[in-house]
């Protein structure tokens, strides 16, 4: 008899058990999709006990795809880091599954790299530190390459000229070292033999400094005394000669009727010696007294001389020499025949003087 109706009091306990159900009488074709889902199963309704897997279910087993309870086998290995600590760079150790935290290679929280020293208080703008921890030894940064090696400096990390505005470069082909700016175009080259070449630019010294020649041998002999071997100045330029007159204890400018033309009055100062040239023509002076030409470019310290090569400006002895005093003067005094003053040709038009001289400057 088919089961067509279930009374209101339902089914008695165990009314339907395995004896009432034929094999395969309730299989997937006898219930709709979703008719047996979580909502139709009470908690723990299908527990481990209801599973027919082989083996023993426990806290250390899991249900494997072959319907067996299996104990997992750990095929991974644990890696140990020795001396691990904050900031340390991790390196290999030479031992399997073991790494090393390097005390002398670290990156601090600011991203600064430390080699040879643990991070410590430092200027914020320093990003990389290389220190020799062994006393008595020097720290070197070794950069090598088949063609050469170098360091570039710039304000950009991009692939543009901004990242090599200045550079230091060793060239293996001739073993030279360049220190340059302007993308390598200007700077110096130190050759293998020790010579220094300025690629483009000048050598500048602070005032009072220059080239020291003290390694060279000095003048010797009775009465000779070497005073200085520092070449510290060179300068060239122009100066303006003026005719002086002596008035009430001072040398002042004489009155020029015609200034004339100063075409080529230049000086060249080499070390402490000033060389000068005078080329003055077409002038006329009205009230000079003694024959004095002033306006030299530097105050004198040692004496000097002036040789007149071509002039009509003197009263007499046109081709004579002049004298520069040592006491801070900037003027040439012209004497003749011993200690006799010469004089300018007052009130004569079209005078000229060409002369050259030198003196020691203060």
């Amino acid at each position, binding site marked *: 008899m088919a089961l067509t109706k279930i009374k209101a009091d339902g089914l008695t306990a165990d009314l339907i058990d395995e004896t009432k159900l034929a094999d395969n009488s309730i299989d997937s074709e006898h219930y709709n999709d979703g008719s047996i889902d979580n909502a139709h199963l009470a908690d723990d309704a299908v527990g481990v006990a209801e599973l027919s897997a082989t083996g023993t279910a426990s806290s250390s087993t899991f249900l494997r795809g072959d319907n067996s309870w299996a104990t997992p086998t750990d095929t991974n290995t644990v890696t140990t880091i020795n001396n691990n600590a904050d900031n340390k760079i991790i390196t290999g150790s030479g031992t399997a599954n073991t790494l090393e935290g390097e005390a002398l290679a670290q990156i601090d929280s600011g991203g600064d790299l430390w080699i040879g020293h643990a991070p410590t208080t430092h200027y914020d703008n320093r990003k990389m530190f290389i220190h020799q921890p062994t006393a008595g030894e020097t720290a070197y940064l070794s950069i090598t390459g088949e063609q050469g090696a170098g360091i570039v400096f710039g304000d950009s990390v991009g692939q543009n000229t901004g990242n090599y505005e200045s550079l230091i470069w060793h060239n293996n082909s001739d073993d030279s070292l360049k220190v340059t700016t302007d993308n390598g175009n200007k700077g110096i080259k130190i050759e293998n033999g020790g010579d220094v070449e300025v690629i483009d630019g000048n050598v500048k010294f602070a005032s009072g400094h220059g080239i020291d020649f003290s390694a060279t041998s000095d003048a010797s002999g009775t009465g000779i005394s070497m005073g200085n071997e520092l070449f510290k100045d060179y300068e060239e330029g122009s100066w*303006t000669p003026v005719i002086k007159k002596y008035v009430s204890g001072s040398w002042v400018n004489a009155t020029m009727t015609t200034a004339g033309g100063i075409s080529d009055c230049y000086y060249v100062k080499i070390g402490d010696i000033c060389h000068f040239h005078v080329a003055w023509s077409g002038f006329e002076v009205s009230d000079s007294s003694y024959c004095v030409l002033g306006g030299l470019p530097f105050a004198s310290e040692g004496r000097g001389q002036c040789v007149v090569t071509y002039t009509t400006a003197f009263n007499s002895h046109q081709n004579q020499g002049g004298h520069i005093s040592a006491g801070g003067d*900037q003027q040439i005094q012209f004497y003749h025949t011993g200690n006799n003053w010469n004089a300018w040709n007052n009130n004569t038009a079209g005078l000229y003087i060409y002369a050259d001289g030198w003196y020691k400057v203060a």
Partner: protein
Amino acid sequence: MALTETIEYDKIEVVGKYKAVQIRKAHIVKKDDKELTRSFERYVLNPDADVSKEPTEVKAVCDAVWTDTVKDSWKKYQESNSPE
């Protein structure tokens, strides 16, 4: 591309016992602010010089170093070397 020429008193030096003021007057030619040439003209001022027409920075140095003592010393030196 403008050419400009300026004058700069780029060295004002005090030298010697009598505080002579050595002046280097630089004539500078620039093209678009890039210096093309710099040439020098030199002159020296002694403690009895008239500095009223000198530039301010030169006058300032002269005023600072030419004390009455220095001026007196220079005057005596001049007189001691009088040609007369």
